[in-house]
């Protein structure tokens, strides 16, 4: 699964924070998964529990997953709108799953029909919080 690489990134990033902040251990990592990329939280968590074993000091970190809805803003008319994934065919859904920005090739503003919009929320994976011991 392609999620493997993203889950692994979280562990690598946590290790970086641990080193940068001189933590002894990382105990908890809160990640946010955005609805545009549409990553399966369960699979992501399962993979994380595998990959964290490869990162010293992260092995015991608990992963907390939050989700964030998709939000786009139209640069032409200012309309904000969401992503209706169920309307996408499989190939298009996959394209956006791999590269969220590609949504711009397949979706238009529901109000003015412009394809010139920006993802403002829910793009992909980011780390929101890390708890650790000194």
């Amino acid at each position, binding site marked *: 699964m392609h999620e493997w690489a993203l889950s692994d*990134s979280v562990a690598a990033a946590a290790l970086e924070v641990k080193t940068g902040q001189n933590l002894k251990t990382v105990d908890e990592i809160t990640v946010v998964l955005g609805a545009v990329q549409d990553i399966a939280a369960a699979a992501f968590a399962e993979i994380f529990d595998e990959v964290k074993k490869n990162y010293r000091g992260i092995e015991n970190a608990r992963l907390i997953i939050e989700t964030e809805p998709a939000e786009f803003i139209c640069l032409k008319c200012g309309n904000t709108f969401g992503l209706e994934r169920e309307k996408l065919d499989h190939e298009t859904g996959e394209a956006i799953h791999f*590269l*969220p920005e590609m949504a711009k090739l397949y979706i238009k503003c529901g109000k003015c029909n412009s394809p010139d919009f920006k993802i403002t929320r829910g793009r992909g994976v980011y780390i929101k919080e890390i708890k650790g011991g000194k």
Partner: protein
Amino acid sequence: MDIKLNMDPKISAVQGRLAGVKRIIAISGFKGGVGKSSAACVMALLLAEHGKKTGLMDLDFNGACDDIILGLGAQFPQEIEGLEPPLINGVKFMTPAFFAQNKAVNLRGEEITAAILELLAVTRWQQLDYLILDMPPGFGDAALDIIRFIPRCETLLVRAPSALSQNILAKTEAALLDFGVKILGELQNMSLDAIRYDEGLEAAYGKPQELLKTQFAADLEREMKKLGL
């Protein structure tokens, strides 16, 4: 201790994901139409032909065309611990075209940055002798991002004889040095004493085996040797 962040984990993954890649070479030139893509594709094919483990990544999001030069069919990356690039005539190939369904890619610079980072974080190159990056024209987001995310990347400049190309290249070389980029050398394209204009090049697009038989490939191979490639 409780640390609030808004951290993109992909940045931390890049170095590890490229750990098995010995050399990374960006084919740049900063003027459009000087032959960067043709050189990048044929160079990758030649390196693979010489038994080198080779990858090719098209980073010209707005004008990706390596898929056409190489004759990409229905191949698509496989989901194995990331995205595993398909093999085209021995070259591991990654391109935004996989996700664009033959549409124009109307991404802005910051979106290209995000997409490049995504591809760098998930593409599973594994062991490579060479990873060739085909760069867009201009010293914009992609060029700046490669310098930022892959500081060890070397740059190979493609030069065409036109006055405009020369002028832009001279400016750019100065800027690259300012950025501390390692310049591997220059390829003189459409030039009588380096890579000559090859009438047969276009007809070979889409057919890797034919591309390898062109005068362009023979000339490029000679120039590559001079550069130790």
